[in-house]
């Protein structure tokens, strides 16, 4: 069967009433966490891992993907109306979007963000559907050494390539890798770093780490800044729709944003944040109204919002076809697959085509749902921004502990939650990125297994790692991604890298 046939079959799955319900729950939750500052899709998926344990795998994964897409939509609302990004990929949107809202053009800004997200999500999801089978064919020739090289590349791009310091990124990554070593070695059954504490034999739970780092660490950091100075929520003036001139200026920006976002998301080259930043820079260079940039140019909202949605879809390409997460959210979604005993990768397309294609088709459905949620119903989401800060964070923390209590209600696990939360706070305070810790924890054990398998196949000859052309090229790219930014920073060109290095979701 060809891609089109699979996609039709997937749509049949996606239109089952239960699947529609899961998708709806996902996009509603996703929009909510996107709108609320302080929580993002990564945390939300992590919180839901224990809850979905007993539910239907396909439905749960559809819900997770809906949360990811929804987060990208919802984040723009907060950026535009509050000037505080609701999630990290919408940082750029705040630049022009908030200016537009201040000038009384909040309606068009929200509309171009929502429609741009829809256009980009639709195109990028179709690209995902038609690209994935080809990547799967490519992935079939991958052996352990190629997978190991691919993971090294992902490690480098997630930690060291962007952000203001390669050293800090690597520190975060290796803290994650160290935490990943806790527990029973998967190849020999040897207990490592458990120090005789039985609860540590299972290793560090993804949910606990994500909740601690994203929810508790963030809450501690925000609380320690003292009471909120108060960026008031701007009211939406006028209707949430665009004039003909707005359309004329937006549609090219949407398409360019999609063209930038999808490849960036699908390569192990960082996530939606970088895509939205590049799209903003592109729009700024190409615009016919340079005088408006910085004062509320609609292209500066349309492009980045399209780019971050396209990148979210792009991220699913390596996740589904190779089992390789390139963002924190994707890493936690991978943990979601593993929870159901599914290993994303070429085999999954053969062993569970209904699930994979149902998931991809559901994304198309979710996109339509999100357009409805974010255009006619936008005023409802704005109400969320009026929740007072103390109540918001109180609620976030209660839900956060619920996640850990759901996985493993032992005192050891809860103590880890508090300790990692403090670690997350200190890392924020001293400018260490959070995402590499989570990616290191989830990808670390897989990289170790692939490395040891590769070496076992070659009877312990380390040269085997560079003897296949694919592996050698991937490791070479990793070296470039590590060294090139260092040179740029040493030459004082690091500010660009620092600006795009806020990756958390």
């Amino acid at each position, binding site marked *: 069967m060809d891609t089109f046939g699979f996609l039709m079959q997937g749509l049949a799955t996606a239109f089952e009433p239960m699947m529609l319900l899961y998708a709806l729950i996902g996009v509603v939750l996703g929009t909510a966490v996107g709108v609320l500052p302080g929580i993002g899709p990564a945390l939300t998926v992590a919180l839901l891992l224990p809850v979905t344990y007993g539910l239907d795998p396909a439905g749960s994964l559809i819900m997770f993907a809906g949360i990811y897409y929804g987060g990208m939509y919802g984040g723009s609302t907060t950026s535009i109306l509050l000037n505080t990004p609701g999630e990290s990929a919408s940082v750029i949107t705040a630049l022009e979007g908030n200016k537009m809202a201040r000038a009384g053009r909040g309606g068009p800004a929200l509309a171009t963000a929502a429609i741009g997200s829809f256009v980009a999500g639709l195109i990028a999801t179709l690209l995902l559907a038609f690209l994935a089978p080809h990547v799967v064919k490519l992935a079939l020739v991958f052996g352990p050494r190629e997978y190991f090289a691919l993971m090294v590349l992902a490690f480098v791009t997630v930690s060291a390539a962007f952000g203001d310091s390669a050293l800090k990124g690597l520190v975060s990554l290796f803290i994650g890798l160290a935490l990943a070593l806790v527990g029973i070695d998967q190849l020999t059954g040897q207990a490592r770093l458990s120090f005789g504490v039985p609860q540590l034999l299972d290793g560090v739970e993804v949910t606990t780490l994500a909740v601690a780092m994203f929810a508790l660490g963030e809450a501690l950091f925000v609380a320690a800044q*003292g009471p909120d100075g108060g960026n008031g929520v701007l009211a939406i003036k006028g209707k949430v729709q665009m004039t003909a001139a707005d359309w004329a200026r937006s549609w090219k920006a949407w398409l360019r944003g999609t063209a930038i976002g999808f490849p960036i998301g699908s390569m192990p080259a960082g996530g939606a944040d970088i895509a939205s930043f590049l799209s903003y820079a592109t729009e700024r260079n190409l615009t016919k109204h340079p005088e408006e940039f910085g004062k509320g140019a609609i292209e500066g909202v349309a492009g980045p919002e399209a780019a971050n949605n396209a990148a979210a879809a792009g991220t699913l390409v390596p996740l589904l076809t190779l089992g390789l997460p390139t963002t924190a959210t994707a890493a936690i979604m991978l943990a979601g697959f593993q929870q159901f005993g599914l290993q994303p990768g070429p085999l999954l397309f053969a062993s569970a085509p209904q699930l994979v294609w149902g998931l991809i088709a559901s994304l198309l459905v979710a996109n339509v749902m999100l357009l409805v949620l974010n255009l006619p119903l936008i005023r409802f989401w704005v109400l969320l921004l009026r929740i007072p800060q103390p109540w918001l964070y*109180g609620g976030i923390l*209660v839900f956060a502990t619920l996640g850990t209590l759901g996985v493993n209600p032992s005192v050891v696990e809860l103590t880890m939650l508090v300790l990692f939360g403090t670690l997350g706070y200190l890392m924020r305070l001293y400018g260490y990125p959070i995402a590499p810790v989570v990616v290191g924890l989830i990808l670390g054990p897989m990289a170790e297994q692939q490395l040891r398998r590769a070496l076992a196949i070659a009877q312990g000859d380390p040269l085997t790692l560079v003897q296949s052309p694919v592996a050698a090229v991937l490791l070479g790219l990793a070296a470039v991604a590590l060294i090139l930014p260092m040179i740029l920073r040493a030459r004082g060109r690091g500010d660009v890298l620092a600006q795009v290095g806020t990756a958390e979701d």
Partner: protein
Amino acid sequence: MTPQGAQGRRPDGAAFVIAAGLVALGALLVWEGGRIPNKQGYAGVGPGDVPWLVGWVLVALGLGTAWQGWRNPGPPRPKQQAVPLLWLLGGMGVMVATIHWIGFVLGAAILFTCAAAAFGERRFPRAILSGLALGLFIYLVFDVLLQLNLPAGPIEMLIFGR
């Protein structure tokens, strides 16, 4: 970079503390890597070798952090307020220590109240009542309906009989 105020003094003291922590963590991993039986098998790499490697990289990163802290002044950091931090960590601590006795609902109420207090809420009766309501709601949805096993205490016994 020009030194700014008290935080901009050189060298950066915080970097040395971080560096010490990284070296200590690295040393722990190297020690653990050497301690456990390293069945290398065909691979020539056993369960102890990866901790050993990660440990040495952490030591190296620690030394790098110290070197950077020595050469560059730390960036200016926003002043941190201790009281909200104590509220939050205290609330978490009390919740962790007591939740298996008092159950999820009361634990959630304690945590909610302390977290709200950390963000400036001073109307405690309202916060406590909201925390209780939220805890009850979550217990009802996740334990009773979704069958997630949450710690039960006197309140849960009384209302849900389990």
